[in-house]
C-alpha cells in the first residue's frame, strides 16, 4: 500500500529525514517510536503533503501512485489521513460545514453522489457515537476552545467520517488520560478494515497496550534505526531511549 524508499527531507537546508525506508501493507498496524526531535512529525507531515518541508531525494509510492507529486487534498481524497499532533483551531469554520465539505469532496473524487443534509447528519451521529465524542463539540468551530483531549478525539472523529485507507496518527495519545486514551484506541480499532492500514506515532508504550502493532520502528535522528515486533515496545518502556541514543550517536 505504502512504500517509502530512501526518503530525505530538509527544512531551510537543514536535513531532518536522512533516508527513510518503510513498507506498509494493507491490514497492518505499524508503530513509529522514538525520542523527541527525531523527525516523526516531519515524516507524517511529508506524507500528508505539507509544502513547508523540502523532499531532497527518495520516493513514496501509495497505491501505485507517486505520492510526492500530489496535492495534500488529492492525497486525502485517495485515502491518506493525518491525525495531527497539534490540531489547528479554526475560529468561524463550523465543524459541520468543515466535515460536510470534506466528506463531499471525497465523494466527488470517488464519483459518488453528494450526501444530502439529512444523510450527512445521520452519518455524523453514527460516527460521534462510535468515537464517543461529546455531541456539543460538533456544534462549535473547528477545535476552537477544545481541550487537549477533545482535540485528539476530534481527530479520531474526522478519521471515522473520512474512512481513510492509511491513517497516520501523530501522537494522538499524548496528553490523554486513561479514559480518553481508551476511547481513542477503541476508535482506531473499530475503524480498522482488512484493506486499510494504520501508522501510529507514539512516544510511549502505553498506547500500544490498546492498539496492538504488527511492527514497531524506532526513528532516531532522521533514520529508522530499529524495526521489530511488538516486544520492542516493552524493551523501550523498560530501558528508555538512552541506549538507542548511545548506540546510534553521531
Amino acid at each position, binding site marked *: 500500500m505504502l512504500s517509502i524508499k530512501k526518503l530525505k527531507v530538509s527544512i531551510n537546508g537543514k536535513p531532518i529525514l536522512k533516508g527513510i525506508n518503510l513498507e506498509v501493507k494493507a491490514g497492518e498496524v505499524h508503530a513509529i517510536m522514538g525520542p523527541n526531535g527525531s523527525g516523526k512529525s516531519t515524516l507524517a507531515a511529508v506524507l*500528508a*503533503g*505539507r*509544502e*513547508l518541508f523540502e523532499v531532497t531525494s527518495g520516493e513514496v509510492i501509495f497505491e501505485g501512485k507517486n505520492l510526492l507529486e500530489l*496535492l*495534500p*487534498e488529492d*492525497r*486525502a*481524497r485517495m485515502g491518506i*489521513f*493525518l491525525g*495531527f499532533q497539534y*490540531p*489547528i483551531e*479554526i*475560529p*468561524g*469554520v463550523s465543524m459541520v*460545514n*468543515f466535515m460536510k*465539505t*470534506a466528506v463531499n*469532496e*471525497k465523494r466527488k*473524487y470517488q464519483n459518488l453522489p453528494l450526501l444530502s443534509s439529512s444523510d450527512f447528519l445521520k452519518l455524523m451521529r453514527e460516527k460521534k457515537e462510535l468515537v464517543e465524542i461529546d455531541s456539543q463539540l460538533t456544534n462549535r*468551530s*473547528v477545535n476552537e476552545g477544545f481541550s487537549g483531549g477533545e482535540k485528539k478525539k476530534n481527530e479520531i472523529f*474526522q478519521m471515522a467520517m*473520512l474512512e481513510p485507507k492509511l491513517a497516520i496518527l501523530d501522537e494522538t495519545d499524548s496528553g490523554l488520560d486513561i479514559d480518553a486514551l481508551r476511547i481513542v484506541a477503541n476508535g482506531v480499532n473499530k475503524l480498522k478494515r482488512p484493506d486499510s492500514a494504520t501508522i501510529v506515532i507514539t512516544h510511549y508504550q502505553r498506547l500500544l497496550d490498546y492498539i496492538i502493532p504488527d511492527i514497531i520502528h524506532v526513528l532516531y535522528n532522521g533514520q529508522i534505526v530499529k524495526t521489530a515486533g511488538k516486544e520492542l515496545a516493552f524493551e523501550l518502556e523498560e530501558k528508555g531511549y538512552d541506549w538507542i541514543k548511545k548506540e546510534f550517536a553521531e
Partner: protein
Amino acid sequence: MNNETNTSPGKNVLVEDYNNNYKEIFKQTPDFINNIRQTSFKEFDLSGLPSKKDENYKYTNIEAAFLGAYKRQFSKQKLTIDVNEVFKCDVPELDNYLVLVNGWFYEKEKLLTKYNNGAIIGSLIEASKQYPEIVKKYYGKNLTKQKNSLSSLNMAFAQDGLFVYLPKNIIINEPIQLINLIVATEELMVQPYNLIIAEENSSANIVICDHSLNPQSFLLNSTFEVIANKNSKLEIYRQQNAHDHSVQITNTFISQKENSFVNSVNITLNGGTVRNNLYVELNEPHAINKSYALWLADKNQHFDNNVHVHHLSPECESFQLYKGIVDNSSTGIFSGKILVDKKAQKTLAFQSNKNLLLTNDAKVRSKPQLEIYADDVKCSHGSATGQLDEDAMFYLRSRGISKKESCQLLMQAFADEVINKILLEPLRNEINNLVEKRLRGELSRCNRCKVNCGQ
C-alpha cells in the same frame, strides 16, 4: 479650520452650481431647512473639498473623486423607468420597503406614512412640510461638533432622504427598509440627507441597501443623522453594493442619550471609491454603541472606513470591529479614534481592525487611535493585518478540501464575525449568501433581483 478659501476645480463647479440654482433648491424645502442650507454652503465654500494634505483624507483622493462631469438634480426629475419593473427585493420579511431613486421619492402613496402608533416614516422633504415642528427640532442639530465639509456640501444641496420618527415608547418589530437606488443615464451626483429619530423607550430596526442599476458613473454623498434618546434602541444595517465606477461617500452622525443602545453594521460589497465616516457621540451615562463594518475589495476598488467615537459622559460603552478583505490591487483603509473626555470616567471602549490581505499588490492602511483624558477607564485598540493562516489551510486541505475551497472557508469565517452582528435573521442570511458569492468571485446579486450590482 483655516480662513483661506480652499479652491479646487471640483469645488468651484459646486459653488457655481449652488449660486445659479439655489432658488430652485430652496423651493423644495421650508425656510428652516433653507437657512441650514445657507450656513452649510458658507461652511463648504470656506473649507472646500478635503485635500490630500488633510490628515483624515491622506489616502483617499476626494478632490479627484469630484472631478467627473457630474450633473446634479435640484428638484425631482421625471423618471423614465418604472421602479417596480426594474427593482424587486424579495428577501423574506424585507418586502415592505421604500425606494429612493437618485435621491428622490417617487411613489406617491408611500411618500410619508403616519402609523396608528404615531410613528412617521417616509420622505424627509414631505415630513418637513407636514411635521415641521418635529423635523426642525432635530434637523442638523446633532452634527455641529463633527460636521465636515462633505456633510456641509450634502446639507447645502440636500435632496430628499429617509425620515424615521419613533415616538415615545413605540417599538417597531418589522424592519424599516430603504432602497437607495441610482438610475443614472448621465454622470450624476446624488446627495440625500436622512434623519432618524428615536424618542424615549422606542426601538426599531433600519435596513438601508444601496444599489446601482446601470454602469454609468455616479457620486453619492449622503448624510445620516441619527438621534437615540433615553432608553431607545436602534439596529442600523447598511449594505453598499454599487458598481466600480461609483464614488460613495457617507457621513453618519449618531448622537446618543442616557442608556440608549445603537448597533450598526455596515457591509461594503462593491463600489469604486468608498469613504464611510461614522461619528458617534455618547452624551449621557450608560449609552452603548456598537459599530461593525466589513468590506470586500478587489480589482482596483478603494474602500476607506473611518470611525470616531466620542465619550462625553461617564459609564458609557463603545465597541468597534472593522474588518476588510482586500484582493488584487485594491486598497482597504481603516482609521479609528476613540476620544474620552476628562469627565467620562468608567468608560469601556474597544476598537479593533483586522485585515486579510490576499495578494502582494493589495494595500492596507490601518490607524486605530485612542485619546483619553479620563483616568478610570478600560480602553483598548488594536489592528492586525495578515494573510490566510497557513496552518489552517493545510489542516483543511489535509481533509480533502481543495485549496480554493479552503480559502473560501477561511475568508467566510473571517467575514462571519461581522455578519453575525446582524440580528435580523433574513437579512443576515441574505448578506451571508451575497458575501459567499462575492468571495467566490460571482456576481453578488440579491436573489432574483434584476439590478446588476458590482459590475
